[in-house]
């Protein structure tokens, strides 16, 4: 299984599932596009890392997860957070820094978390969440809960130590975790191939952990979904972890206002032509879904984004006194008696 996995027996996906994957991708895309505009306008503060172009990975996996499964993602985590069903408004409130924010303003863009939705955090230090995801999987295994942890990270992350430690220990423990490398070809500004000893940063390392090399077209949401289904099932069955390399591309820069100019124009153009959303829209159309239905979805998503923005603009600032709450389980931050 080393290229485009496809739905069972070559059949096309269930229609409802297809539409739901499409909707999820659109939610990610439109939310992030607006977020970027609001960042440039100074409303969104701090930093943002957009996953525009990579939506199929988030949507494909989230669509194959059980509600109580765990997601672990990075600072580039809007897509993964939205795809698990976290509403846009508290996310946007977090980004603009207003009351009602998903984490009360304490985390910010890089740390989106919604335990209620199984989004167990976005981690801003490269590689840290791989061992943590393994731990959640171990816990599920110990509790016999049948839950699976899915852990997303970038190509650059395959060169840091915690990747290696987590993969080995997960394999030895047969932990129910799926490690998903979103290979978008770049670290921040440096092409991954210039700093990596193998061509496929994740897949070419799988054998080092006794795992199969799994590669999927990360811009093909159905292929991703099928790969997700297979690897999650494997984990749930007790057959242990998988390492999936989803080949994709970020349309924009690494973060904030980075225009991503370090990438050859031709390369960017080629990938834009493989936009996961427009190509999937075409595929759904070819499979008989009407333009009207697809347009309706877009209209609904747009108005959800607009509504989130309206709330975000109107919400008050947080109470500065909350800066010192929730360090400890007692709600406070006192370190003395």
């Amino acid at each position: 299984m080393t290229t485009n996995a496809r739905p069972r027996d070559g059949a096309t996906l269930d229609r409802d599932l297809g539409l739901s994957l499409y909707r999820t991708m659109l939610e990610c895309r439109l939310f992030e596009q607006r977020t970027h505009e609001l960042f440039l306008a100074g409303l969104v503060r701090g930093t943002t890392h957009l996953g525009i172009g990579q939506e199929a990975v988030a949507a494909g996996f989230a669509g194959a997860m059980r509600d109580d499964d765990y997601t672990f993602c990075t600072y580039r985590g809007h897509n993964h957070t939205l795809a698990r069903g976290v509403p846009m408004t508290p996310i946007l409130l977090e980004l603009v820094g207003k009351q009602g924010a998903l984490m009360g303003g304490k985390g910010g863009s890089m740390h989106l978390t919604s335990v209620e939705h199984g989004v167990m955090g976005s981690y801003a230090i490269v590689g840290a969440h791989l061992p943590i995801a393994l731990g959640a999987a171990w816990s599920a295994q110990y509790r016999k809960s049948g839950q699976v942890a899915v852990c997303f990270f970038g190509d650059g992350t395959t060169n840091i130590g915690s990747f290696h430690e987590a993969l080995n220990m997960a394999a030895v423990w047969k932990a129910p975790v799926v490690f998903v490398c979103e290979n978008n070809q770049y670290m921040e500004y440096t092409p991954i191939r210039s700093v990596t000893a193998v061509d496929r940063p994740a897949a070419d390392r799988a054998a080092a952990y006794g795992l199969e090399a799994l590669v999927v077209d990360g811009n093909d949401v159905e292929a991703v979904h099928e790969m997700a289904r297979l690897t999650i099932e494997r984990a749930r069955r007790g057959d242990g972890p998988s390492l999936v390399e989803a080949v994709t591309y970020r349309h924009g820069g690494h973060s904030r206002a980075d225009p991503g100019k370090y990438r050859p124009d031709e390369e960017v153009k080629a990938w834009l032509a493989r936009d996961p959303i427009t190509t999937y829209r075409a595929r759904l159309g070819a499979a008989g879904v009407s333009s009207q239905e697809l347009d309706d979805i877009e209209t609904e998503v747009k108005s959800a984004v607009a509504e989130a923005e309206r709330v975000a603009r109107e919400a008050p600032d947080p109470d500065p006194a909350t800066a010192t709450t929730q360090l400890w389980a007692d709600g406070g931050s006192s370190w003395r008696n």
Partner: protein
Amino acid sequence: MAELTYRQAVARGIGQEMERDPNVVILGEDIGAAGGVFKTTEGLLDRFGPDRVRDTPISEQAIIGAAMGAAMTGLRPIAELMFSDFFGVAWDMVANQIAKTRYMTDGQVSLPLVIHTANGGGLRFGAQHSQSIENWAMAIPGLKVVAPSTVHDMVGLMAAAIRDPDPVIVCEHKTLLAEKADVADGEILEELGKARVAREGTDATVVALAGMVPRALAAAEQLAADGGPSIEVIDLRSLVPLDVAAVLASVEKTTRLFTVEENPRLCGWGAEVVSIIAEEGIYSLDGPVVRITTPHVPLAANPVLEDAQMPSADRIAATVRATLENAA
């Protein structure tokens, strides 16, 4: 009543809590079949089986990271870090992930976990296996830190750490592992954040921790035997939460403060204690506040050199005596 060593007290505390709560699990290098390099987990594998007592590869980031992931999903894991020096290879997990996640998620994530580790010098293991790193942990908001000095406290504070809903670093002092004492049968549970007056005195307060507590007590006895000043020794037991009230009360009585630290000089817990008193208790003080520390160098392996570095009972006694005489 049963006689127990400090190292057995570690396993007793852990075992007590594992009996009580099936969600308590432990992982680390050589902790299972081998019972731990310091034999502080001996017997646990037999009692609780390999699902709850897990041997790991040499992968401290994965060990501590896995403990975090398990803690956020319903378990109460204990990670063993063989030597506290090895925090270096997993410090991101401790300082950046475990310490900050509850805060960053505004309380969505709780991390009831313990990292227990052999800390401190005196065994001639050299600079990379002898550090006292309790101040590394104390400096990071979100970590609780305990460092028991007695066999009883080792059981009771370990139990408290495991039951605590927040991450706790438990420092086991290497020089104390072989110490023995009778401890009560049945459940033992202490409270985090309570110092203990280990010896009452009137002329000066000496605040100590872990392996330095017996030395401070010996110094106090030595001074008493020589007709010197009367020393009150406070065993802090816990750095976070810190029992500020106990130190303030003692200094108010004695008017003089000394701290005895094993960690190298700069930015230790002693500096924190002194600074608090310099702000909140300055009008109680009758003279300079003196920190007795290891000098700001790594510990040497050589016994003569290591003994010259770590505060000894003699050095504590001599420093206290000279300081008080100077001021008088």
